């Protein structure tokens, strides 16, 4: 048997309009911790979904060799039967069940067809001891913290006799202590012969724990680095992650920057449920007329939380700080106040938070500014049609008419509807959260042009994005945010991906 537990050969996975994986090959040695790095959207998660059977055999091209034989997983159950277990960033535990019940969920220990609770408790006890968790197996999941929940997930994987453990951003939501414990556990499991693939943005962790690191960018493997001997540092990984051609992907633009239009002072917000957890930590930012300001941070850094807490306190608890628009303090304690003050926020998740998918384009566009369409107290639907049609024209929304249902449009066209909706509220400042997520390249270019036109019309624009090249391509200034704090501010003339990536991965106390 070869020394490689896994070989993925020439994997190509195509979604409508997007080539998510392009001829990707990955080799993982038995007993190694193999890290996969890449920006959001690079294709890491897609690759893991191909491996674990979430995308069934036949929906992708290429071959997977596992333990020396070709495998064709149809679903997660198939891959788990072979000892491949994936633990997602969002943990799949049922909060009101106990640790033991969660570990054996859908894998129950039975006797005469009934669940054997004694044996379940006994086995669970062994497993949680193996992962170093000091809790009773009867404790409910909701009563333990995220760090311990992560350990329960690993115990659950062990119960399935895992050989290849895949962890997607395991430490993203953990504090330093829990992260350190988790990494120790992974080293320990490695000693027991369990192979591990870890997807992470925390490059210092990767540098300390991984045997090999594969870098993926735009659905392609860029390189696989041998981490032995500590020769590879964070800088080296960053270089691989960001070093791409940047011509022609962003429209040319010269900004005419005016006076300050928007300022946030000492903005702090806590988690809505865990009200003692600071998620946005004393943030100070400003935006000028005509300026496009980027907010760069890895997932979970507090970007969206910052934006939504400013936008009418629509996220968080115990929010403090001041917002100024055109030098005057603005009232933002409800969403209506925020909109009336001239703030618009276009969400990162347009399907869940942005659009009424079962309604038509025109009613979605008028949704946040319906009062503008009133004539003698009634909505003038002909004017609504006309205004929406103007947006369809100017934004190039591809649909037969504005009476088309929004749910049937492509991602790019839906995003244009979202932008139209907010532009029609006549805002001073637009906060655009991941404005190009899930959109193909051509539509991205159009969205960038729209953003630049907005800035040129004298508005202030904040763009939140996980894609660093995008921010560097269209912004005039970028703030880096990490763990809820602004860790850096870079002017256009100083734009260098490595510098920003360093700020974005700055951790507390480092």
């Amino acid at each position, binding site marked *: 048997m070869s020394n490689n537990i896994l070989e993925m050969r020439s994997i190509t996975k195509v979604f409508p309009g997007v080539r998510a994986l392009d001829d990707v090959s990955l080799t993982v040695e038995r007993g190694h911790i193999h890290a996969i790095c890449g920006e959001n959207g690079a294709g890491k998660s897609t690759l893991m979904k191909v491996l674990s059977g979430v995308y069934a055999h036949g929906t992708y091209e290429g071959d997977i060799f596992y333990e020396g034989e070709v495998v064709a997983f149809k679903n997660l159950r198939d891959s788990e039967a072979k000892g491949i277990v994936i633990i997602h960033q969002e943990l799949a535990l049922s909060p009101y069940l106990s640790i033991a019940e969660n570990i054996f969920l859908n894998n129950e220990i039975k006797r005469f067809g009934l669940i054997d609770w004694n044996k379940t408790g006994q086995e669970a006890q062994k497993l949680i001891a193996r992962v170093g968790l000091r809790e009773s197996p009867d404790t409910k999941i909701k009563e333990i913290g995220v760090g311990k929940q992560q350990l329960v997930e690993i115990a659950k994987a062990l119960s399935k006799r895992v050989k290849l453990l895949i962890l997607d951003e395991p430490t993203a939501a953990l504090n330093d202590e829990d992260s350190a414990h988790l990494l120790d556990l992974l080293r320990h499991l490695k000693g027991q012969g369990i192979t591990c693939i870890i997807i992470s943005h925390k490059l210092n962790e990767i540098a300390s724990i991984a045997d090999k690191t594969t870098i993926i960018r735009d659905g392609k493997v860029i390189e696989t680095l041998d981490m032995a001997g500590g020769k590879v540092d964070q800088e080296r990984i960053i270089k691989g992650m960001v070093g791409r051609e940047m011509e022609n992907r962003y429209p040319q633009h010269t900004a005419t920057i005016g006076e300050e239009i928007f300022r946030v002072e000492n903005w702090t917000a806590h988690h809505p449920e865990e009200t003692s957890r600071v998620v946005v930590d004393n943030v100070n930012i400003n935006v000028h007329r005509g300026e496009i300001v980027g907010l760069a941070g890895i997932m979970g850094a507090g970007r969206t939380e910052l934006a939504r807490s400013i*936008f*009418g306190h*629509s996220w968080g608890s115990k929010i403090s700080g001041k917002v100024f628009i055109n030098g005057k303090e603005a009232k933002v304690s*409800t*969403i*209506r106040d*925020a*909109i009336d003050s001239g703030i618009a*926020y276009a*969400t990162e998740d347009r399907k*869940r*938070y*942005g*659009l*009424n*998918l*079962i*309604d038509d384009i025109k*009613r979605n566009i*008028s*949704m*946040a500014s*319906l*009062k503008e369409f*009133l004539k003698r*107290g*009634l*909505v003038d*639907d*002909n004017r609504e*049609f*006309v205004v929406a*049609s103007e947006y369809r024209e100017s934004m190039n929304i591809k649909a*037969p*008419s504005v*009476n088309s249902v929004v749910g*049937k449009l492509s991602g790019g066209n839906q995003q244009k509807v979202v932008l139209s*909706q907010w532009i029609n509220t006549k805002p001073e400042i637009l906060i655009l959260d991941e404005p190009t997520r899930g959109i193909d390249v051509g539509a991205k270019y159009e969205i960038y042009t729209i953003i630049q036109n907005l800035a040129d019309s004298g508005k202030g624009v904040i763009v939140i994005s996980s894609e660093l090249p995008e921010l560097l391509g269209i912004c005039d200034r970028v703030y880096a945010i990490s763990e809820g704090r602004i860790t850096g501010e870079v002017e256009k003339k100083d734009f260098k991906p490595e510098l920003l990536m360093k700020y974005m991965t700055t951790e507390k106390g480092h």
Partner: protein
Amino acid sequence: MSMQNTKKESFMDNLRSRLEGVNLRQNGIFLALIGLIIFFAATTPGAASITPDNVSNLVMQNGYILVLAIGMVMVIIAGHIDLSVGSIAAFIGAVAGVFVVRPLEQDGWEWLPALPWFVGIIAAILVGALVGVWQGFWVAYVGIPAFIVTLAGMLIFRGLALMTLQNSNIGPFPDEFRAIGNGFFDKENTLGASLGFPVDLNAAALVLTAVGILALWWREITTRRGRAKYGQAIEPWVWFLVKNTMLTLMIGGVGFQLARANGIPYLLILMIFLIVIYSLIMNKTTFGRHIYAIGGNLNAAMLSGINVRRVNFWLFVNMGALAALSGILIAARMNSAVPKAGDGFELDAISSVFIGGAAVQGGVGTVTGSMIGGMIQGVLGNGMNLNSVGIDSQMFIKGLVLLFAVAFDVWSKRRK
């Protein structure tokens, strides 16, 4: 196989593009209603279903369900449900009885003078709105699911109805009060007499019917012109003519039969008024639009600055007032406030709304659709009665109609 598929699809696409601007679902149930009417006209002995008296009865018997269905469709579009409307109707019927008939004979109400009938009605509707304030508070501001709040309300208000009635009935009501449930516009046919009409043909009914038909055509044509002027999609003109001719025949037929009976019921005038007003509210006011937005995507509605709590609150206040009106109509028609009034009416109202094309998940539905849904149920029940179908089979059939109507909805949506 794949060739066939593409062929079939392109045919369907073709059909769909031809039908753009035609609301298939809405027109589908309208056609179903017409079909039912024709079916029962043909099968009932002596075409009993379309005799003047039966048409008149049909209108009078279904009015209070339709009033409930108007409020219910709004609640359902917003993604809620209201199980308490039947009990509220009974409670308000009792309250109206106390107000206008005999406060003096009910223990504890001696302080209240017997109110003039119209003051009593307004006061009773206000009490209904207060009931809505109570339920709206729990749903909108405390965040308890409407299913629970109104399930509790179903018991609470039935209990209050019994308490108010003190285990008896209240009646009879004054003639003016009874007229809203039982009366007819110009029943004596004074207009007909002055014009030299036959005694048994109500002239006022014919005039009102003509006015109704003219109003329909005027509205349809101006709307169509308005849409065309702004380049909006319009129905093919053949369908436009067919649809409105059918509507005209239906309205004309009903009007003529009513003229041969006792004339136009006040209840019908009230219903048409409510349907027009509430259609306007749902389509053309910010309140109505916000209801659709909340039902379509609660999160998006909230992030668009819609005050979701306030909208939910007023929805239930409105539902309470409409349930109150329904209770008054029931009491007026029965000439008595009774403890069992409105029993099970919430289910009829909910069925009307879903047969009328509303979506269980919210966001979809219309007032007119629910009215057609209610009429389908009414015509079906009435026709089966005339055909001497047993109550057992009637329940069975009504259940299937509801199930298949919603199944058709789900199925047609999945095909898209």
